[in-house]
């Protein structure tokens, strides 16, 4: 095998160095994903002002109007209307609220349970560890979507239940990863010093171990937010999410499913919205992981 030729050129004299520097800066900060996530948060907060119509306002004469650039569409409804004549754009804008709320709250529940159990498990080891890890195994071996579907039907479809389900289904991944981290941290010398200095176990866990796992937790949270949005949209798609007429992206895909020939815009835009947001979160998560902790592998 020929050794690869190594090009040594001072960066400044390199043609197009400026463009390259911009590219590398773009690579350093995932600008587009960050903008998309910020846009999501912005639309969710200001949905009332941004949406041209109420997401519930029906108008049967206007039903199934296509987007404005298609023949038959008008600029009154930029992205067309659905089966009941409701404005698709407005429903899309209001739908971002559900996605965001479920994602944030679900992650909060799952992350808290997972972080606490993971720290306990890794810190104390022994029986506590064995018990928590068995519960973890059991949860992880259950088909998550099936479990979520089952729970959604049992508890009945509602926003609060959806959030609990996310927590119950997703805590195990946090616990597993954080346990591993804690196990390596607790062997560090500064923990031993803290103990010598008379710190209690609780204090060590909160003051000395937790700050060290925040990075890992952040990366996990970013990836999981995307996953929660997908899971939520899937449950809504199957009719086990937040019940209609509340607009949800997954629900909108489901509504359009039977009308892909006559009304493709019903499911195309909502699915596009989910994909864009989750894609951004995943790209941002990738960057965050490389930035905070290059050694941390797939979480």
């Amino acid at each position, binding site marked *: *095998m020929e050794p690869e030729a190594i090009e040594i050129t001072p960066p400044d004299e390199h043609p197009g160095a400026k463009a390259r520097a911009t590219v590398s800066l773009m690579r350093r900060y995932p600008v587009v994903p960050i903008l998309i996530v910020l846009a999501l948060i912005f639309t969710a907060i200001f949905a009332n002002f941004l949406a041209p119509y109420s997401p519930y306002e029906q108008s049967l004469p206007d039903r199934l109007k296509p987007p404005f650039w298609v023949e038959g569409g008008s600029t009154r409804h930029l992205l067309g209307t659905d089966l009941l004549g409701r404005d698709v754009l407005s429903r899309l804008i209001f739908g971002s609220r559900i996605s965001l709320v479920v994602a944030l709250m679900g992650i909060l529940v799952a992350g808290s349970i997972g972080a606490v159990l993971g720290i306990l498990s890794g810190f104390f080891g022994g029986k506590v560890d064995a018990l928590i890890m*068995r*519960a973890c*195994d*059991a949860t*992880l*071996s*259950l*088909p*998550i*979507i*099936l*479990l979520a*579907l*089952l*729970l959604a*039907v*049992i508890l009945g479809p509602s926003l609060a239940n959806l959030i609990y389900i996310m927590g119950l289904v997703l805590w195990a991944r946090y616990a597993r990863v954080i346990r591993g981290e804690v196990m390596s941290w607790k062997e560090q010398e500064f923990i031993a010093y803290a103990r010598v200095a008379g710190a209690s176990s609780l204090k060590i866990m909160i003051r000395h171990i937790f700050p060290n796992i925040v990075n890992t937790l952040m990366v996990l949270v970013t990836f999981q937010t*995307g996953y929660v949005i*997908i899971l939520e*949209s*899937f449950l809504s*798609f*199957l009719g*086990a999410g937040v019940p209609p007429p509340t607009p949800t992206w*997954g629900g909108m*895909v489901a509504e*359009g*499913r039977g009308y*892909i*020939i006559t009304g*493709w815009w019903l*499911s*195309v835009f909502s*699915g596009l919205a*989910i*994909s864009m947001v*989750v*894609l951004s*979160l*995943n*790209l941002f998560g*990738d960057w965050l992981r490389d930035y905070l902790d290059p050694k941390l*592998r*797939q979480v």
Partner: protein
Amino acid sequence: MRTIQALVTLFLVSMLVFWLARLSGDPLDVMMPMEASAEDYARARKHLGLDKPLPVQYARYISQAVTGDLGTSIRAKIPVSQMILERLPNSLRLAAFSITIALLLALLLGMAAAVKKGSIVDTVSRFIAVAGMSIPIFWLAIMAILLFSVHLKLLPSSRAGGFKHYILPAVVLGWSFSAPMMRMLRSSMLEVLDSEYVKLARIKGVKERWIIWWHAFRNALIPVITFAGFYLGLLVGGVVVTETVFAWPGIGLLAYEAVLWKDYPLIQGVVLFITSAVLTINLCVDVLYAYIDPRIRY
């Protein structure tokens, strides 16, 4: 030791599922006709053994389940095990196709991305992987139907059938399933290629191709295999989704229907069956893992 752990997990899961299935409301509400009287309810309850306390019902259920009797579906009135067995081949065939596609994608693109790090191949394959993780599979499925069935009229949009019926669901499922595998393989391959022994092999003048496929690839596979259980969970979830969208008569669709109908023996049976299958395969993977990586001993 691993076997005992797996059995304990299975036991816990079966209890959980049994309890959850019961929380979903009185199954009699769904199965009895509107005009049924209170006596009809009592008779049906007694007939189905629903009047006994829950632990008794569970004990009876589990002792029958061990012999392969998972009860009778309330709605279809056929044994659950028979329903599962009828649908199973469809799901297995779909899964086999998808796994093949996923493995091919993951191996080809994952390896190419790692070996040619920073090249256009790397960028493209990373994008394919991230997109596969980010696009919800049900939407992908609908878009595939829209493009290939509605507009191009090339492929059938639903139900099982000849080879053509497999293409859309298998590709959709395979793609989303291969994404995490691809990323995993790439990162672990990069790590291995950066290791001391690979550098030593290079210094010794070992051919690059030999290094990649003999020294590096085998070691890069280890972390990928560790996550096999995780991928399997993804696959099961993906199968449920794909089957629902494509009206594919497999176990996933059965599970979805069971939940919709509140057919609790069916839910229990299906979830128990899927979970035991997943646990068994995980156990096999662990054994395989010890075989591939001799440092691991249970």
